[in-house]
């Protein structure tokens, strides 16, 4: 059993079928009160770079994309992200 925070809502989640041992601070994928996967935090960054890679391929001929990429970079700076 683990106490999980869902975007502000706290709930008990069972760990019977999770794929890996879970510790405090981990992200998990929950389904009907059961964690079905431990999501390593660095995987979120990996997802974002996968999507950015997709855009590089899809948008080679598109100037607008460069603008929006600038927008994202600016947004990051505002939030103080890396």
């Amino acid at each position, binding site marked *: 059993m683990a106490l999980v925070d869902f975007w502000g809502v706290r709930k008990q989640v069972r760990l019977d079928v999770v794929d890996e041992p879970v510790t405090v601070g981990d992200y998990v994928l929950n389904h*009907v009160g059961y964690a079905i996967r431990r999501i390593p935090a660095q*995987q979120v960054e990996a997802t*974002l770079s996968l999507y950015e890679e997709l855009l590089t391929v899809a948008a080679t001929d598109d100037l607008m994309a460069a603008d929006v990429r600038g927008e994202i970079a600016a947004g990051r700076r505002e939030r103080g992200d890396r």
Partner: protein
Amino acid sequence: MTANAFEALRDPARARMLADALVRVTSKIGRDPVSVMHVCGSHEQAIARYGLRATFPAALEVIMGPGCPVCITDMPEVDEAVVLAQQGVRVATYGDMLRVPGTAMSLGDARARGARVDVVYSISQAIELARAAQEEVVFFATGFETTAVATAAVLLADPPPNFSVLSAHKYIPPVMEIVAEMPGARIEGFLAAGHAATITGWGVFEPFVAEHGIPVVVAGFEPLDILAGLVRLVELILEGRAAVENMYPRCVTREGNVQAQEKLWKVFRPTGGRWRGIAHVPNGNLRLRDELARVDARRRFDIDLATLWASAPSPLAHQCICGDIMGGIASPDRCPLFGKECVPDSPVGACMVSSEGTCRIWHEYGGVDRRLGAMGAIPPTGPSRTHVKVLP
């Protein structure tokens, strides 16, 4: 941890870029429509909730297939639960199941007539109910493999002696075959449900892709996940490449959650059966194995469906086109009952009941009006901005 790392997966600027990429890739195909199908109610929910449909290019048809576990639960399965409840057994189930019409009535109707029906968020709550109760408690277990693993875990963890399961669990991979082969089907690619694939692994789709020559992309449920999944799927269609691609690697691996699979197949065996509105699906139903007869409500009780035979389904039910909607042949606005006789408070068909049902989602979020085009939650940037039409 204060900030939620997943926030970035709802970032509007990134979403706009992906939405634009989707427009570009789709236009490169140069055909209208390009039809793809997702098979998950949670995908439809996210598409509606984040206004993604309004950003899809007009030429891209994103159809919801049989991905609502409540909707595809067959009427005789609901009937079994209703009969058990009427026989005095306490029935616990997920909230969505309460109003799904059976032949004569729903579980909610049975409860209104005095039967004991409990709504639970999780099967573990049904176990707690059984522990605290003297009477027999049956859990009416619905949902796909994602939900079935929870049922399996409970049955393997020594449930109380007055607890048993009426399984209406379904297994997704076989139904994709059925939908791909449906007469009139024009599906060029599938967006596979990331949560089901978390259990089964993406490798489970390889035989399907080899046999049908249709690409499958596994996608997650945040707005960026869905947009990126669609971009990749349309790219594969453009390249004419039938392959499985995993765009949800933070949750899905090739092998899946092996531990959960072991539990699943220890408890269940796949068997053929009807999915409401779709067809008989070979290996599409999950039933309890013989070794678990003791906790199988179908063997533990004599469920006499004949007690319902005197009742006929509502005459309106004949006009319901849920089957076509779940097969991806029609959209809810094509149904004469949609939003009129059939509304969430008094649903005629199962698609209007569940929060994962196509009709319910379209009713709640207003479906899609192509005239509104670019006025959705994420306005596109780039050339299409000049085409925004503001309506009175």
